[in-house]
């Protein structure tokens, strides 16, 4: 057994490209921000306001707000909930995600 996609016999449409901090990342139709980043081996996309520590997925169901990320210029999006579209620009969110 090799991957969850194989296990569920997933046959999604062709992959498309999104960016994380300008770097290209492949995504599959139906994937959330978190799913595409996990699939690319990336597990953190936010730094905390206080200590500047890295964070990513924790609860995976929209409750904990640890996976906040900036998508197409909008900060504080939950990566576990937001589905991706071709060309979406994901940015690592630092602190509050606002320029303060």
């Amino acid at each position, binding site marked *: 057994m090799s991957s969850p996609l194989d296990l569920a016999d997933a046959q999604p449409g062709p992959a498309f490209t999104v960016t994380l901090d300008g770097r290209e990342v492949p995504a599959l139709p139906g994937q959330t921000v978190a799913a595409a980043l996990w699939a690319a081996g990336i*597990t953190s996309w936010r730094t905390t306001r206080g200590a500047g520590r890295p964070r990513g997925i924790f609860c995976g169901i929209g409750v904990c707000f640890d996976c906040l990320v900036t998508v197409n210029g909008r900060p504080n999006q939950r990566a576990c909930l937001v589905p991706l579209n071709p060309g979406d620009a994901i940015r690592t969110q630092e602190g509050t995600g606002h320029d303060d």
Partner: protein
Amino acid sequence: MTTERPHLAVIGAGPAGLAATVAAASHGVRVTLVDAAPEAGGQFYRQPAAELRARRPEALHHQWRTWERLRDGLRTHVRAGLVRHLTDHHVWCVERRPGVGAHPGFTVHTLLGPEQQDPAEVRADAVLLATGGYEKVLPFPGWTLPGVVTAGGAQAMLKGTLTVSGRTAVVAGTGPLLLPVASGLAAAGVEVAALVESAAPKSFVRRTRALAVEPGKVAEGARYAAGLLRHRVRLLSGHTVIEAHGAERLEAVTVAALDPDGRVRPGTGRRIACDTLAVGHGMLPHTDLAETLGCRLDGPNVHADEEQRTDVPGVWAAGESTGIGGAALALAEGHIAGHSAAARLHGTEPDPNAWAAAGRTRTRLRAFFAALDDVYAPPAHWTEQITDDTVVCRCEEVTGGEIRAAVADLGAGDLRTVKLLTRAGMGWCQGRMCAPAVAGLTGCGSTASRRPFARPVPLGVLARAGEDDTV
């Protein structure tokens, strides 16, 4: 669809909400099923995103036939126009509308997902809360490192997005969820280096008689265990994770043995390399909507009577929100709640014989989960694992030391005072993640949090909410 039919809003499309929807619609009630997810199923039957076109989603699931029955039941009633299924609707408040017409009614306030900026309202004659639960995780050093996820989170990502966060995982904590999570990850190609359960095998033996009321459930557990053996997963019972290691992400965990009193045995620590730790210490019910409606709670659970009615007229509750007990119990409670709501909305007294079988299932499963609750318990002295520099409140980055200082030096004795002094519980998640730990460190009970809104609401939406009600 006729407007004369009474209208029930069911909140949550997991097992309880689906069973309730099907039962109520079968008895001639118009139902609006309001759910945050893009597809029905809830957490237990979380479906892969449709665009992933999974041809074998059942490979990630158990009791798939029950799901098919629920899904088909929902489809039938949607086609017949009796049920409206609102997906991507995040409910932030349910409000009682007094004095509108002859009957009081309810307004369900939602935000449209995933952006959650634009509002939508649903009016109904009655409300059935099937809001489910979320996972409890008790802190330990390193638990905020990327790669450390809740056990349920690992499962949700696997079921919903068909992704995993690494190649080697440790599954740890306590509770019946750990077995399916470890099995799921192993089946999906992840090397599960260990399943670390803090309960000792002895505690199962002590509760054999109580657990025997559900031989099917015990067999289910045995099947999982056998599957894990097949994947060569190491089972470490009576052990706990005492630290997660890594600089920018998880690299390893240290696991140690527990003594019979629930203390870590000195010198038993061993390091296990892993890039994923899926950890959980049980489940907590989502009760925000019920609390805002003024429903009575029994401990952490929404109080419900034999018919699954809360003590607020017109409000029913079923599933995990009335007490954690898994999908089968949620189905039984949802079925009963749907029957009761339908009868009462038609102005008739419900006949309990109509749900006799579900009633027996409910009794049996509640007894079983009460016994499980005794078996699966975090180590008695888990707060000793929280060092002074361990971040406890993940949102506001409040450490164990700061909370201890608020208690010892400033005299805080409850969650609210600790929050005011330290900001623990004041962040984005509103204390959902840290409340059990803060309560443990404070030495107080986890009191109801009284969150007026179940999720963040844009101020503009809040200002306009209910404007129509003044007419």
